[in-house]
Structure formats: C-alpha cells, structure tokens
C-alpha cells in the first residue's frame, strides 16, 4: 500500500513523524481518513481519537484543538494536546469534561455557548470511545 509522510506536532514537541499508509483524523465536521495523494485540504479538529495506520499495529492518540493540513508533500496535524491512548488517565479526561462543562455555563452569549456545547459533546463522545477502546484492549 502506498505510504506518505505524516507529522503530528504539539506545541511542546514533535509527537510522531514517519511514513504511514492511512490516518483517520477527527475533523470538526466529521471524521475523515487520509490516504496517500490526498487533495490539498485544511480542516480544524474536534477532540477525538486520531488513528495512525502504518506498519504494525494501528496507533491511537487522543488529540484536542488544532488543525490538519494535507498537501502533496504529506499530512501534518497540529494539535494542542496529543496523548497516546494508553497513557491517558481517566481522571484527567473527567477533569477536561468538567472544565468544558463550566465553560458552557460561563458562556456569555448564545454563539459562544453553542460552540462550547459542541466541544463538550465531542469531548464526551471521545471519552466514551476511549473507555470502549480500553475495554477492548483487555
């Protein structure tokens, strides 16, 4: 299968860099898979699970906030948070959800509230997916 260069970057470091065959990215308007030779494309991210398929087992990471950029040179995903699923702690997720919940309550206008609500929903569904994944692994 054709591979393409992929980079996952967080502000603090380069999380992943290498040739992969497919990456599934949680985009704001739905998840999408990127294969080699994708058309130039930019999308923002929703909190969720990013799956990297290459040689060996698929790698899954929790990503939050940022964007994905596909161009002829490859795909780069910039995420404010990128944590491998096996390293993520349940209490940390719970804290994130709690913070997001408070943000929703603090929102001053309807548009902000709506945006934060969507964010919270995405976070919750990501948390469920992560739990399911953990059960699956054991």
């Amino acid at each position: 299968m054709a591979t393409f260069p992929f980079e996952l970057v967080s502000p603090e470091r380069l999380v992943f860099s290498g040739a992969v065959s497919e990456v599934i990215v949680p985009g704001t308007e739905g998840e999408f898979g990127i294969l080699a030779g994708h058309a130039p494309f930019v999308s923002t991210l929703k909190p969720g699970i990013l799956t990297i398929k290459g040689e060996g087992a698929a790698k899954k990471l929790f990503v939050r906030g940022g964007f994905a950029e596909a161009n002829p040179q490859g795909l780069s995903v910039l995420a404010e948070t990128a944590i491998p699923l096996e390293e993520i702690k349940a209490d940390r997720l719970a804290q994130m959800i709690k913070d997001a919940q408070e943000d929703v309550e603090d929102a001053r206008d309807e548009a902000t509230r709506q945006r934060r609500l969507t964010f919270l929903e995405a976070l919750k569904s990501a948390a469920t997916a992560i739990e399911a994944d953990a059960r699956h692994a054991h």
Partner: protein
Amino acid sequence: MASLKELRNRIASVKATQKITKAMQMVAAAKLRRAQLAAEAARPYAVRMESVLGNIAGSISSGPDVPLLLTGTGKDETHLLVVLTAERGLCGAFNSSITRLARERALSLMNQGKTVKIFCVGRKGHEALRRQFGKQIVEVVELRANKGVSFADAQVIADKITSMFAAGEFDIATQFFSRFQSVIAQVPTGQQLIPATFPEVAPAAAGAAATYDYEPDGAEILADLLPRNLAVQIFKALLENGASEQGARMSAMDNATRNAGDMIKKQTLTYNRTRQAMITKELIEIISGAEAL
C-alpha cells in the same frame, strides 16, 4: 592597613561567593541546554501554524467576516505592551534590556498622545516598570519560577489578551521579549501580536494555497486558529526568553566568577606582603634588641 585577620576573612568571603557564582553558572548551563531543546522542539508547530495561517489569510484578507484579530480594529489609539521577563534576577542585563525597550516604546507612544496599557509577565519586569508606569499596568502574570514554561502558561496569557481585545480594551498588542542568538548575544525584540502579522509567503507556496479545500470554510478556520496562533506566538517568545535568560545568567555568572578570582589573587598578594612585612619587622626588632646588649 588592614590586619592579617581582616584580610583572611575577606579572602574567605570572596571565595565563598565565587563558589556560589560558579555553581550558578553551571546550573544555568544545564538549564540553558534544556531551554534550547524546548525552544527547538516547539519550532515545527509555530512554523506550520504560520505557514497555514499565512496561506488562509492571503486568500481571504478582506470581507466582513474576517476576524478582527487579523485585521485589527482599524485604529491605533490604545496600545497594549506585553512585557515578558524572568522571575529571577542575577542574569546580567537580561531583564533590564527588555524593560528598557518596552519603556522607550511606551514613552514614545505616550508622547504621540496614545493610550498605553502594560501587561507584565514575570516578576522582574513588573518590579522594574511599577514605579514609572504604575497606572498603566493592567495585568500581571507571574510564572512559576524554577520550572520550564508549558504551553498552558502561554494559553492563560493568550486567553487574557483575547478577552481584553474582545472587550475593546486595546487596538494593537505588541510583545517584548529577548530573542536568543547565542550565549553572549540576546536581542530584546518587540513583536506585534494583534493585528496578526505573517512572514511573506513565498510565491510558489502562495500558488499552491489557492487550491486548498477548507473544512469548515476559511473564515471559520481563521476564527478558530487566530487565538491559537496568539498562544503559540507567546509560547515561542516565552521559550526564547527562557533560553536567553539562562544564557545571560551563564555569562553574567562566568564574569562574576572571573572577577572573584581576580579579587582573590589581589587580596592574597596583599595578605602575603603584609605577613612578610610583619615578619621582617619582628626580626629587625629582635636583632636590634640583641645588638643593643
């Protein structure tokens, strides 16, 4: 002339100081390496962010739905100066050169009749600016000393700035920090944050940008990314500052150690001279006493 005991004490005290400065220098060297690594690790993110934003901003630079963070309010009445300094001193001219640059900018803006607001990050900058600009300082953020900066710190600062901007408290924001060039050279720099500026995109890259698909559309992506970019720019500046601080401290402490060495040498010389002079004096006394008999 100081007595022998006094001289001995003085030498001992300088030696103790030298030990401290030497230790600080070595600690700074170790921290500098870490700070440089952190700064380098953060570079890819900032570079990508800039190029993507530059692309999008280039393709939709006008229109009513372009966020104000990019275009600015169209006025330049109120300026926000974000002054990034260290938490600790003993690092040569590091803090003072940043605050000097900020102070000069603030004074020249005030002379032009603009309103100036100051946002201090770091204890040292606040201490230095407090007396002269007590009224202008609107916000102070202190970073936890002794720990490397994390993206969360930058996020907190960026959030404060964006909410101030949303409330219409200023028109133009500029950040002041020290760009790290080498251990001996740190350049205090001012960088405009709002409205956002991007380095010119190379023509070839700009051509490729036109064919990008955006999801959601470009304006929405911009609205999402510009606040993030602000945090990234601040984070980058904080990291540069961290490296500069350690570099400045390293060379300052190196100087201090060398000065202490010189002082010890000089004092030891005086000490030995005095000691010999005393011995000679005592001998003369004994000999002349014996001769008198």
